[in-house]
């Protein structure tokens, strides 16, 4: 049977993945690659990881049946409440795992990149918990539009360094984090926040986020009598929450996987982040994947109103799922996402993050019937986006 879960020994999912890194990073990445599976499988690691997921993160997160949304879309909708994780999004599942990994590799200094700030906050949080030095790179444009998260990181004791090159967003923050790692090859672990980067990061982060779909299966069995839904829907920037929500369904062909990208102002507007449509194979941040680029291979600047989705690539696993047709890719414009924020807030009493709202906005396009079970990964809460929601109040009404 085909398995979509496991990359090859050199980190390939089909033609996507690999580790295209300068020699300066080779020893770091090799050390991680040679050790991550053993560390993840170590019972002592698992004991500590599971304890922190339970007592610190607040797992398992509920699977909530959204009855009013279900009525509106005439199907059976469940929300996986990752917004209830400590720090307000799924990102912390990964950082808890990676900080334990970093400790076992003997690292004393942590770096991270962040777009919306959720991964930065989740990294600063676990560094505070473990008493480790933490430096977060964030595009200066993102620092402006996600100010509360900048203040959260600082309060947690992290240093937030602005990335001022390029479009000054997530891509550039990632470049700066990689340059930091090149400059600090011995004592530093780089906690990447998504299923991107050189092998083994895409696999490592997918495994740490896989707890989401592991819980979904148990909860679905209790609530619907079957572990398998008809649809699993998640938004994709780099794709970590989607990877976690899809993981334990990847090799269940009856489950339709739906990845929702940010179309920004529209696919053909020139202001978009819909990589599966606009990208072609290329190399970004050490990984061969679908990439938004011009004909000369220069990486182009993506756009989305949501700071967590404007990444010009997607994780190599997702590029493979798109190429194989295993996942359906839908793209949602800024305005549609904003309307979905209001809809979820008013029908279910849950204010979602703007990233998550892209997944919710896809509900009308699924073609799900009354007997179908649809699980939406509610990846984050909307508090961080309040300023944006206030600014665009007209669109939301």
């Amino acid at each position, binding site marked *: 049977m085909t398995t979509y879960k496991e990359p090859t020994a050199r980190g390939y999912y089909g033609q996507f993945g690999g580790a*295209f890194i300068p020699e*300066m990073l*080779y020893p770091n990445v090799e050390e991680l690659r040679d050790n991550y599976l053993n560390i993840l499988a170590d019972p002592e690691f698992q004991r500590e990881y599971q304890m922190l997921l339970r007592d610190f993160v607040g797992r398992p997160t509920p699977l909530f049946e959204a009855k009013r949304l279900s009525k509106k879309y005439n199907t059976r909708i469940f929300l996986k409440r990752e917004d209830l994780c400590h720090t307000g999004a799924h990102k912390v599942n990964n950082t808890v795992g990676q900080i334990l990994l970093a400790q076992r590799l003997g690292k004393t200094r942590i770096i991270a990149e962040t777009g919306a700030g959720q991964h930065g906050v989740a990294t600063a949080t676990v560094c505070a918990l473990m008493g480790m030095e933490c430096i977060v790179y964030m595009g200066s444009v993102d620092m402006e539009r996600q100010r509360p998260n900048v203040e959260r990181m600082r309060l947690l004791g992290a240093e937030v360094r602005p990335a001022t090159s390029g479009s000054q967003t997530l891509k550039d923050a990632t470049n700066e984090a990689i*340059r930091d790692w090149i400059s600090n090859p011995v004592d530093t672990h780089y906690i990447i926040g998504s299923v991107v980067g050189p092998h083994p990061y895409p696999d490592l982060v997918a495994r740490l986020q896989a707890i989401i779909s592991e819980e979904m299966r148990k909860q679905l069995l209790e609530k619907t009598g079957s572990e398998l839904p008809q649809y699993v829907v998640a938004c994709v920037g780099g794709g970590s929450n989607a990877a976690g929500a899809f993981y334990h369904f990847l090799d269940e062909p009856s489950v339709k996987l739906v990845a929702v990208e940010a179309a920004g102002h529209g696919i053909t507007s020139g202001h978009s982040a819909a990589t599966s449509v606009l990208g072609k194979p290329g190399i970004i941040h050490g990984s061969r994947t679908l990439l938004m680029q011009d004909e000369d291979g220069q*990486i182009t600047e993506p756009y989305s109103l949501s700071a967590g989705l404007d990444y010009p690539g997607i994780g190599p696993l997702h590029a493979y799922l798109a190429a194989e047709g295993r996942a359906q890719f839908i793209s949602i414009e800024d305005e549609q996402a904003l309307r979905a924020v209001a809809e979820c807030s008013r029908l279910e009493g849950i204010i979602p993050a703007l990233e998550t709202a892209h997944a919710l906005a896809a509900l009308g396009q699924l073609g799900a019937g009354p007997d179908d079970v649809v699980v939406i990964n509610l990846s984050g809460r909307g508090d961080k986006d309040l300023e944006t929601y206030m600014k665009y109040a007209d669109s939301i009404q």
Partner: protein
Amino acid sequence: MNRIQQAFEKKGKKLNIYFTAGYPALDSTVPMLKSLATAGADLIEIGMPFSDPLADGPVIQQSSTVALQNGMNMRVLFTQLKDIRQEIPETPILLMGYLNPVMQFGVENFCREAAAAGVDGVILPDLPLDDYVDEYQEIFRRYNLKPVFLITPQTAEARIRRIDELTDSFLYLVSGPGTTGGANTQAAGVQEAYFQRIEAMQLRNPRLIGFGIADKASFQQACQYAEGAIIGSALIKALDGADDAPAAAARFVSSVLN
């Protein structure tokens, strides 16, 4: 014997100068090459600008951004280099850049055009050794293009030996942790120990030290442990505000050599 090996046959320490194609102006590339060769650069690396140069510090990042804004791309570069061997018959010329623009141009097209222009070697820092061997080595060999690989203080001995085996040009010794143009922040003796360790390995290929080499003093210091050194960011900085960039480049080369 290729031009790179011929250059190392000559006596004396070698100065390898990097500059960014299409910087400061789109048509600076050829005048810069001629000026650098005349001023005494023993090897020249032409940087192919990339939007996201991960191994580079702020100076080369900035020159790359300007070059791209000027309209530099692979097609323009190869057009500019078409007759370069009539002007500069001997000095080895290498292309340095990142894998993605080369992939989009097509690796075979790239090698064919580079060879036709008389380019001798290629440095792609984000092309992994294994991928080079599996997918690119055969093409590089067909066009007689020599790859150059980087070695860092963390590169393991067995890997250095493998890199040496795969190389027929020179080894690029990265002076210490960091991106291009950074200052040496290592404790006294650490860098020397690294250079001496590599020297003691008795490798087949000559070694050039790069990253953080900025002037006559750091060039001479590096030359104590290798056949020469590579300067990039400091040259780019020396072009700042110059009315005549090729002349400023020549003055810089003289200041390092004399």
